[in-house]
């Protein structure tokens, strides 16, 4: 009995130790800045520009990922075709690629002398150093988070509902829009939230492919990295905002996925 109590105590201690390891650095961010300093740095242009740019680009990226990713995930969940596994692997690839590789790859493809970029350049279209480049970097790294989740959610929908809808007069498109997507909704929403969060946190590919310019390509993570060289308070404030958003995102995903039919 005593032995058991000791074990329970030890397990609890190990758990507490690990929790401390995770929470201490995060909590330290909050302890290193006074509420007044936090609020005043929120009004600084570099912080405001980064906040609005991050939200706009992450939102646009998420919309693009959802628009392109949903049909792809649906096809891969429902149709068996040659090369499906390969398509799956390719769409998953950015999850395991280091962001630096993603940035370099985007440069090689869409840079001014890139495989595609050199032809765009002939028409005067240059992607590097623009907000579009930020969005492209975010779409590249964030899309697998949505597509994976979407495919799993579509696979979880019983195809019997789709068959029933067909016999009731629904075309394949109507079935997707009125049956499959609504039934997979919880998973799709949580996938989109995760994808948004990943886009918001994107750093490596962005700084390589889009550069670093306040108000145009300097998103929150880039602004944190830049302001750290001068205005530590701004860097901490931006970090705190990202911590709060990340916490909210995880909570949102938990709440959304709890609802089940």
């Amino acid at each position, binding site marked *: 009995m005593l032995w058991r109590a000791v*074990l*329970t105590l*030890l*397990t609890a201690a*190990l758990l507490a130790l690990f929790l401390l390891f995770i929470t201490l650095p995060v909590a330290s961010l909050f302890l290193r800045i006074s509420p007044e300093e936090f609020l005043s740095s929120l009004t600084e242009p570099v912080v405001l520009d980064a906040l609005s740019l991050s939200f706009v680009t992450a939102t646009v990226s998420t919309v693009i990922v959802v628009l392109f990713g949903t049909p792809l995930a649906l096809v891969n969940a429902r149709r068996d075709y040659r090369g499906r596994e390969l398509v799956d692997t390719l769409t998953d690839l950015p999850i395991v690629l280091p962001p630096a590789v993603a940035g370099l790859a985007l*440069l090689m493809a869409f*840079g*001014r*002398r890139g495989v595609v970029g050199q032809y765009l350049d002939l028409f005067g279209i*240059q992607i*590097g*150093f623009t907000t579009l480049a930020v969005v492209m970097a975010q779409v590249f790294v964030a899309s697998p988070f949505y597509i994976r989740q979407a495919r799993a959610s579509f696979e979880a929908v019983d195809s019997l509902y789709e068959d029933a809808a067909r016999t009731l007069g629904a075309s394949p498109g109507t079935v997707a829009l009125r049956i499959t997507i609504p039934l997979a909704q919880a998973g799709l929403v949580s996938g989109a939230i995760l994808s948004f969060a990943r886009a918001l946190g994107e750093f490596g590919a962005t*700084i*390589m492919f*889009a*550069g*670093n*310019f*306040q108000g145009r*390509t300097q998103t929150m993570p880039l602004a944190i*990295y*830049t*302001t*750290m*060289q*001068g*205005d*530590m308070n701004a860097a901490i404030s931006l970090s705190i905002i990202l911590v709060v958003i990340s916490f909210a995102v995880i909570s949102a995903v938990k709440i959304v996925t709890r609802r089940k039919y």
Partner: protein
Amino acid sequence: MKVPTPATLVAICLLMIAGLLVAGCTTTEQAPETTTLTVFTAASLTGAFTDIGKAYEAQNENVKVDFVFDGSQTLRTQIEQGANADIFVSASTKHMKALQDGGFMENSTVTPFLGNSLALIVPVENQAGIAGVADLNKPGVKLVIGTKDVPFGDYTRQMLDKMAADPAYGQAYKDAVMKNVVSEETAVSSVVPKLALGEADAAIVYKSDVSKDDLTKVTRFDIPAEYNVVATYPLGILAESASKTEAASFIAFVRGPDGSAILTEYGFDPISG
């Protein structure tokens, strides 16, 4: 498979901790007579100091030199946050001064040892047709500089201020140049690749940042001396260094004939002490 009981889990954790402790002990026992010097070095010195480190280790078998290369501001922040280092090599006197004021440095050892100046670089293709700083205000030139908080970005702004004060260029020139800036980089190391890939048309960097290899990809233009800003690189031993003797010996090597030769090769101007 059986679900492991809490007891098993605890046992596994304890074993792992014990393993780590043992591993930790053996490494410290293994190297009693080898000293490791940790040198926090400004990113612009990456090439030169890597070579110097190798040359030094070749002559001093009992010393291992570990470099941490990053922007001077980042290194300063790390030192202020308690990072363990023996030597700090800064690309600007500002950050060294801050550490000295904060009591982080062994003040008597801090000394300027290197000069570096700004240069203009363009890709060898030179698609924007730039022949010198006078062309930087041409509309559509994609210019890359450093952020205002990193030394090479700070010096670039000082240089543009000097040019703005000269009636030959004027404020309008400076405004037009700043309007052409497409990216503000935090480290020089990420500037040259952007030019080499043709993403940007021009950049203002330290002369020393352009290596011999880089000259196959970019062309370097000197900036007239009257506008140029010469950076002084200080170095010094940290107050909390545990190997001050070895650190002093390494600094002497850097400033001696072998170190100076390598630094000159990389485009720096060693200041003799």
